[in-house]
């Protein structure tokens, strides 16, 4: 042990250096957020609560019951039933998502050829009742209405509808123009939303 080490050890130099650092950080602005009162902004494309897009023209869902989402789902939490004979358009009778089983990979959004389903940026949907997070078709459409109400834009697009950098030739026709016009919203609603926000 050299003389220098001995001095360092006797004078607690390394501990004083550490304390000086903590004092410096103590005087800086805190990085924490007081969560329920303050919320950090969520990036666009955050994989949150599920919703089914409501077609602005018909007011119904866009789903054509192709079953792709149910097939690709790694946790197999999408349940679909439909009627319609072979060769005819299918009619959706049941579309349910069990949000507790969902692992939020976003595969269903990415494979959907109609851009009918979306994982919205809404992330606060904990509930006292278990039933609230078994989403059926009506509930999913309601989720969409709630989501677009909180938006401040006239159109909505999701990152997984038309993934950035993926060759357009790989995408089905409906996914090449991945934007939903929010026509259901009148201008007064919109300005009110902005005011509230």
């Amino acid at each position: 042990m050299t003389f220098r080490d001995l001095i360092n050890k006797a004078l607690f130099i390394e501990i004083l250096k550490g304390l000086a650092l903590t004092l410096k950080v103590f005087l800086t602005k805190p990085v924490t957020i007081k969560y329920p009162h303050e919320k950090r902004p969520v990036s666009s494309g955050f994989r949150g609560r599920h919703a089914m897009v409501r077609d602005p023209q018909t007011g119904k869902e866009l789903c054509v019951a192709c079953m792709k989402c149910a097939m690709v789902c790694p946790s197999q939490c999408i349940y679909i039933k439909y009627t319609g004979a072979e060769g005819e358009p299918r009619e959706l009778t049941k579309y349910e998502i069990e949000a507790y089983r969902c692992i939020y990979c976003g595969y269903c959004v990415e494979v959907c050829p109609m851009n009918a389903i979306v994982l919205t940026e809404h992330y606060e949907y904990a509930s006292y009742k278990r039933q609230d997070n078994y989403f059926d078709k009506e509930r999913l459409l309601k989720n969409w209405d709630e989501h677009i109400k909180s938006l401040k834009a006239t159109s909505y697009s999701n990152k997984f509808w038309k993934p950035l950098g993926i060759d357009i030739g790989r995408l089905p026709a409906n996914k090449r123009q991945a934007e939903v016009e929010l026509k259901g919203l009148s201008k007064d609603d919109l300005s009110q939303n902005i005011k509230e926000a």
Partner: protein
Amino acid sequence: MEQVEITKGSDIGLHTQELTLNMGPQHPATHGVLRLFLELDGEVVKRCTPHVGYLHRGIEKLSESRAYPSVMPLTDRLDYISSMINNIGYCIAVERLMGIEPPPRAKYIRTLLAELTRISSHLLWLATHALDIGAMTVFLYCFREREQILGMFEDVIGARLTVSYPRIGGVRCDITDGFLEGVGRFIDEFPSRIVEYETLIDKNRIWLQRTKGIGVISGEEAVRWGLTGATLRGSGINYDVRKKMPYDAYDEIEFDVPLGQNGDVYDRYRCRMEEMRQSVRIIQQCIEKMPKGEVLSKDAPDLDMNPKGHKRLEPEMSLWSANVSFSNEYTTTPKGELYSAVEAPKGELGFYIVSDGTGRPYRMRVRSPSFVHAAAIPRLCQGHMIADVIAVIGTIDIVMGECDR
């Protein structure tokens, strides 16, 4: 370090007996649900038996009933602290099986994000390891930086922890220039943060006493136990999958492999700290060399790949010509077996896939570093006190999600 003399009750004529103690599975310092069955003589560990399996979810079995692309989100849940590298490891294994080469941009993006993940994983390791040993301040500082990395992941793919970002044959979506700038800013600032952590604990006398000479294992023995990653390199063995079996863009990038000498907890700590600096170097080179172009190979299977195999279509053709006939033949995955490994933050993460020619793995086995390292805990704890068991668990950076799968 000089060994502390321990006066035993039996030496001074008192009646003593061995105590058996269950440490875990609900112990905050065992990093999850690891249960250690300890047989103690006073405070000294006589025997230690790890019991694993409390977090078993059957991921290997589940993957047998899912098509190759749908298995990928399950691999997020192996080592949930570095999910990106798990995804990349799985995707590389399947790419090698199917003979797909991802485009250069995808390779660089993967390398960049893998190193960001390595930093975030090492930050969490340092935070919890230091907290277990008693240095609480480092814990809070590490989480401050880790939060920034998680925020970047959120920008890219919309999830912070279980990212599911790569895809067989490339990545799921491209990154923006704004993202690269953000990473650049973080990387410029980060080395000064590493210095901060080191100021706090590197020479701290409590830290030195708790880590030096604890859990010593020689290089030769470490190889025989099958240790990999920084746990092995702390003993001075130069083995890094990124150097020995390069994948993605690692063969085009310069970096060093930090090595320890004594093979104790302190040397492994130094190794990981240096690894973070090397990761910064790799990321800087990735940003500089980032090529332009596609991010998904043309041969890549679709996400909704049929369990029978995947179809290769020419989509532009089929849209415009009315009499195009869709072939019902599937391009099948080659039959055979394959082992492919990547360097995860914890060690060598390998995927062993047996293919029977369909679109699903016939069998998938994950060679997870934490499982192998868990077996070495009794060896590393030999003759140490019960408080050092905590240091040993911290130093091998065990994650039970990966260990039990």
